[in-house]
């Protein structure tokens, strides 16, 4: 009985997913067929344009350029964010002094800084990296800080009571406790970094995915825009899945982990 109910429920869930995808694809196809090719194109036309873009090497090249700056930027944001987050969490003086500025900077729309960076650093790789770091840095910092700050004092007492060295306290208590929070920050940063990547592609370089979109729009090539947007969407979904996996892996000791 119960298993039957469960399977039926599961079936319904999966039917929902599959039906949702099919529904979306059909809607896309139908709308694309009703409208002029400049406004919107069917999913079939989009996919065949995607095939072309991959075959002639345009898309792989753009992907590679964009992701070089993304990977470097994310790595810097992660290390820097985790470090500053731990520092602010464990040093009350620094936290009191700098917390309001961190919050204010977090609220700043970083795209607004892009023209300034363009004037200062010019086109190119490193200015793109700076933009991505600016976008991705704060979620890691704030989540790490929030985590490291909320360690229960009893657990720190336990560590001290059993004569743990400073390194033991970090290795056995602070780092494992903070990692799930850090991973939440990483997941948020992966998404924000992607926004930074596209924005810096738009304004700070003449290649990469964003530039592909801009040039396609100037040619009114809707099929290409949709193909590139679809690619970016899939990348976003993959990154989110990775982020979520990392998060639940490091939080497996929590209730319902």
């Amino acid at each position, binding site marked *: 009985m119960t298993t039957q109910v469960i399977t039926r429920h599961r079936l319904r869930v999966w039917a929902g997913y599959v039906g949702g995808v099919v529904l979306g694809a059909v809607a896309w196809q139908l709308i694309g067929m009703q409208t002029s090719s400049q406004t919107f194109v069917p999913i079939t036309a989009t996919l065949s344009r995607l095939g072309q873009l991959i075959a002639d090497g345009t898309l792989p090249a753009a992907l590679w350029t964009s992701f070089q700056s993304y990977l470097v930027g994310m790595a810097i944001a992660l290390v820097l964010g985790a470090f500053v987050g731990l520092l602010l969490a464990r040093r009350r003086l620094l936290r009191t002094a700098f917390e309001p500025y961190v919050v204010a900077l977090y609220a700043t729309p970083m795209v607004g800084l892009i023209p300034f960076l363009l004037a200062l650093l010019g086109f190119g790789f490193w200015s793109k990296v700076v933009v991505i770091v600016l976008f991705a840095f704060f979620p890691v910092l704030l989540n790490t800080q929030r985590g490291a700050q909320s360690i*229960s004092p*009893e657990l720190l*007492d336990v560590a*001290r009571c*059993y*004569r743990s060295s400073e390194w033991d306290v970090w290795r*056995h*208590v602070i780092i494992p*406790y903070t990692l799930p929070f850090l991973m939440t920050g990483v997941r948020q940063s992966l998404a924000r970094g992607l926004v930074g990547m596209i924005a810096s592609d738009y304004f700070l370089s003449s290649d990469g995915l964003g530039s592909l979109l801009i040039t396609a729009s100037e040619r009114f090539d809707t099929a290409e825009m949709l193909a590139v947007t679809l690619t970016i969407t899939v990348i976003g979904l993959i990154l989110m899945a990775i982020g979520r996996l990392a998060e639940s892996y490091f939080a497996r*000791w929590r209730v319902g982990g």
Partner: protein
Amino acid sequence: MTSGGDTKIRVDGLEKRFGDRVVFSGVTFDVHEGEVVSIVGPSGCGKTTLLRCAVGLARPSGGEVRIGGETVVDPPEGVAMVFQHFGLFPWKTVTANIAYGLTVRGMSRREAAPKVAALIKLVGLEGFEKSYPYQLSGGMQQRAGLARALAIEPSVLVMDEPFAALDAQTRDVLQLELLRIWDTRQAAMMFVTHSIDEAVLMGDRIVILRGRPSSIFDIVDVGIPRPRDRSAVDSERFRVVRDYVWRAVMQDAELTTAERPADVGAIRVNH
């Protein structure tokens, strides 16, 4: 007279202030080798703070604690503590938690394994070696906490309301378990509790704190022979001691130490 031999722990004129607020002052008592001293008092009287000072987790504002003749500054070797909220690391399995004290002392996982296995058996956690704390009931978590404390073979064991976070039934079971375990491996023990029954059941002597700031109102001899079991609760002696401690803790203003039943006194403080 109390059990035991030489003085293991000496709490000498201990005082703790937070800012200008004096939590307790002039607290002086000894714990002998192989003796259990219960510490009772109303909530907020600084029992936990007293323990934290005793093991070097907090700095006293005055006086000192000596363990084995050495003044306590940081947590000394051979001292283990059992915490009210168990203090298990939620990201470590039961095995890794029990082995923690051994791990930070540089013992490898393989060296620790037989010892940890024996302790798991002792506290009755077989089958849960790989479980994470959130998968265990409160009682089982505290069994793991107890095993972790025993792992380092402590000569001093301090218990900070170890059963206060458990339901009544589990508490009864664990009290008896602790008595049983106690008979096999004796250490000087400080047992903080707000349950008077528990203080009488566990302790050889009971330190009663009261007042604001609190200080020692009396130290009484329990005088129930060991090994003890549940039947100790039914003895006349248990009732007499419990009644006196109860009146003392409940701030019976008229109560003086002179009213202490004749053989409940027998206090010995070495100076």
